[in-house]
Every structure is written in C-alpha cells, then in structure tokens.
C-alpha cells in the first residue's frame, strides 16, 4: 500500500493525522482555509499560516469504485470505493479518502451500493491516514 509522499507544505497535515487530528491549513492573516496546502495565501499573499482543527464531519461530494488493473495491495481489496468528502465546516475543502465500516477496516468493507453523493460521513483514523465512516 502507498504511504503519503509528503512535502514541506503537506507534512503538518500528516503529522496531525498521525495523532488522530484533522486539521487544515488556513491563512493566519485573512483567515481563508486552503487545500491542498501551499506556501502562501492565494487571497492575500501572506506567508503566515496556521493549522486549524476541523471537527471532521462532511458529505460525499463524489465517489468511484475502482476495479483492476490496480497496484497489488489495492487489487486484492478491489472493488473498493474512493470518495471525495466536502467538509461541512469548510466548503471547498474536499478530501480524498475511503468510506470503511470502522477505523482500520479494509477498503472494500462497505458495500458500494450504500454510497450516495450527499451521504453524511465522519472522520476516523487508522495508520496515520484519515478514513470515513457513514454517519
């Protein structure tokens, strides 16, 4: 399975995720949240930023169900869902992830037939990655 290949901008996200916290980068001057993380604010050009905790509630914005050919670790869990979750607290912050039965469950642990655009989900954490369960 692939682990995040992080960069300087993204590293804090993964450090918080490893502690079970969902945080997003926000401008420390104008307050605008932004994703993916980047060196400065596209709204006010400030380089000052903060990592803002978010409660981790969202709705499915879209999803796919991936079938082979896939990389080996993924192929053996296929077909599995991948979702884009729009955070309730921060519209336009959308996170790619998987809807699973419980934290740490396999990628194919939820029947894709239960997924809908608009479905409510909440964040859980496993192995340093955020996952999503149906709320």
């Amino acid at each position, binding site marked *: *399975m*692939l*682990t*995040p*290949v*992080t*960069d300087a*901008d*993204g590293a804090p996200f*993964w450090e918080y995720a490893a502690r079970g916290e969902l945080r997003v980068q926000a401008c420390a001057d104008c307050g605008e949240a932004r*994703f*993916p993380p980047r060196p400065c604010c*596209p709204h006010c050009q400030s380089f000052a930023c903060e990592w803002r905790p978010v409660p981790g509630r969202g709705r499915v*914005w*879209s*999803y*796919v*169900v*991936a*079938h082979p*050919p*896939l*990389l080996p670790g*993924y192929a053996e*869990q296929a*077909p*599995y869902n*991948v979702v*884009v979750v729009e955070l309730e607290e921060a519209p*336009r*912050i*959308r*996170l*790619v*992830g*998987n809807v699973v039965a419980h934290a740490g469950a396999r*990628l194919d642990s939820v029947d*894709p037939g239960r997924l809908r*655009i608009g479905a409510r989900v909440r964040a859980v954490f496993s192995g340093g*990655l955020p996952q999503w369960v149906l709320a």
Partner: protein
Amino acid sequence: MAAPGTAPGIKDAAAIVGIGQTAFARHLAEDERTLACRAVLAALDDAGIAPGEVDALASYTMEDTDEVELAKAVGFGDLTFFGKVGYGGGGSCATVAHLAAAIATGQATVGVAWRSRKRGSGPRPWTNTTAQLPTPAQWTRPFGLLRPADEIAMLARRYMHEYGVTRDHLFNVALACRNRANQNPAAVMYDRPLTREMYMTSRWISEPLCLYDNCLETDGALACVVVGRERARDCRQRPVYVHAAAQGLPAQHHGMVNYWTDDPLTGPAWTAARHLWKHADLTPRDVDVAQIYDAFTPLIPLSLEGYGFCARGEGGAFTEQGALETGGRLPVNTAGGGLSEAYVHGFNLITEGVRQLRGTSTAQVPGAAACLVTAGEDVPTSALLLRS
C-alpha cells in the same frame, strides 16, 4: 507592421503544411527515437521541405526523444527555437501554437512538432511507485485513487449527478469514435465494431467508467510541419492555417484532480475557449468538424460545454440523436480519436484536423473549412482553430 497599440497576433500567420505518422499498434518493434525520426521525415516529405531547412522544434515535456537526438539523426539545420509543453496530453495543441508564435514573430521559419510514444507496449505511468508526484499525489494515491481513469471518474460521477448525464451519453461518445475508426484503415480499431450491448456489459475500470470509456494504449509517432503563410503557398500540400490558438490554466486549477475549486466541472477548456474565440473571426457555429481530446469519454461532453458548442450542463444531451456522427450537428474525432484510432497524447487529433481541411479524411465532412482541435481537458490545456 501592426497599427500602434495593436498586437500583430498569430491569426492565419502560420500554416500546417506537412503531416506524418508511423503505424499505430499495441506493440511496434522499433524504439521511440526511431519512430520519432520516421514520423518527422514523413511529415517533411509530405510538405516537400528538406530536413536541413527546419529551424524550430516543439514537443511535450513527456516526450522522451529530445531535440538533440532528433536533430542529429534526421539532419536538421541550425535550430533557433525549441521548447516543450507540460501536462501530458494538455500540451498537444500548444506545440503547434508555440511554433506558430515563433514563426509569426520571426524567431524561426520552419517548425516541426512531434510526439512519439510506446504507451502500448511500455509501462503504464501510474504503476510507478518510486517517482510519483509529491503534490498532489500525497492527497490521492494512498487512498487508492491511482490512475488517470480514477481521477476523471470522480469528476464524471459528479457531472452525471449534477446534470443528468447518463452512461448512454458516454456510449454515444465511444460509439462515434469507434464508427469513424471503422472507416479508417490506420486505426487500431478499424475492424472492431462497437455495440451498445458490448458497452453496457463490459467490465468496469473505475465506476462510473467502463472499459470503453477509456482510450487505447498505443505505440506510434506523429509529426507536423509549420511554416509562415507566405511559404505555405509554395508547399506541396494545401495549407491549413492556424487561425487561432490558446492555452488554458484556470485560476486555482489542480490538474486531473481538480476537486478543490469552487466549480470543479468548469475546467481548462473554458479558459482556453475564452481566449480562442476572442482572437478568432469564427464562432462555434462556424466549426464544421471537431477533434476533441478523448482520453476518457466524459472529456468530450465537458469540452463541448467549455468550447461553447452548448450551454453548461448540456454536454450529455448534445451527444443525442447522432450529433457526433457523420452528418450530425458536430462530427467529432473523424479518424477515431484516442478512444479508437490511437492514443498518442492527442497528436493524431491535430493530423486528422489537417486531413479534414485538405479534404482527405477517411470520414470526410463535405466542404469542411474550419476545424477545432483540443488537447486534454482537466489538465492545463490548449486548442487550435484550424481553417483552410
């Protein structure tokens, strides 16, 4: 000289006067460099221009045959302009646009653009786990969003949800391309008809996209020759003028994972289109035939919206009643496109646009005088408006 305060622009300043290609197949024996040489020499022969006259080159950043290798192999003259355009298939039309700009501004006189790729027998780029892009791959690949097909399927599902686009609409796209390929002996799918039953019962790749929503995997190379309009009149073939050209990288765009803007379903096509039509004497109504980048079927209805052939959200409905077929409102991808002729990062769409305006396509639109050619949508893109 242009009047004070007005840019001379590139409108009709340059023309494509030669096209060339190799065979297209799942596997070709020769290497990419050799295929590049063959396609380039074929294009120069088509134009009736000697390799020693070439002084400009343009290709993709993903092109593995570099200028030095190509130039010394085929015997180019001194090169005074060369550049490469990024973002995979989004760069196809920009290669010609850069040559047209170089020629219009006097930096070069004879330009060659090319693409050579063994994507059929070579590796799938997404299987590389050691050299993945750090951004934005860290936000997508660990979760199993591994392939371009997955990334576009995510947008496709949302597009279908918001606007009522159906799998039948996507089938209309796949069918139009396959029907044209069935008329084109050079197409990989020349002798392989497609039916609705085949489409609806095919295996999934990334739901909602099935096998036939995905382009081919092809070995092959193509090239074209661009010269100024004066020179073009003396070439062997009828000139095809670059009437307008544009690139498009929208504000806050994120590439093929464009999930993080206010409106992810308006992609780079919208940006390129605004510039293209602003600098053209033509409108979408004047376009007789279009070659629209089709790595995946949903890119065609999205591009139809972006380039102004229909309103927002109407791209799916546009494909109904044979609109994309011969004799329809807008025949597209008349050699079969990436879905059914060959997938060589969209360069075969440029050469087919040229054939339509020469009157030599295997699915000729009678009297075609204007053709839109587009590059990959949902990556930073480019487009050409060609006219005879």
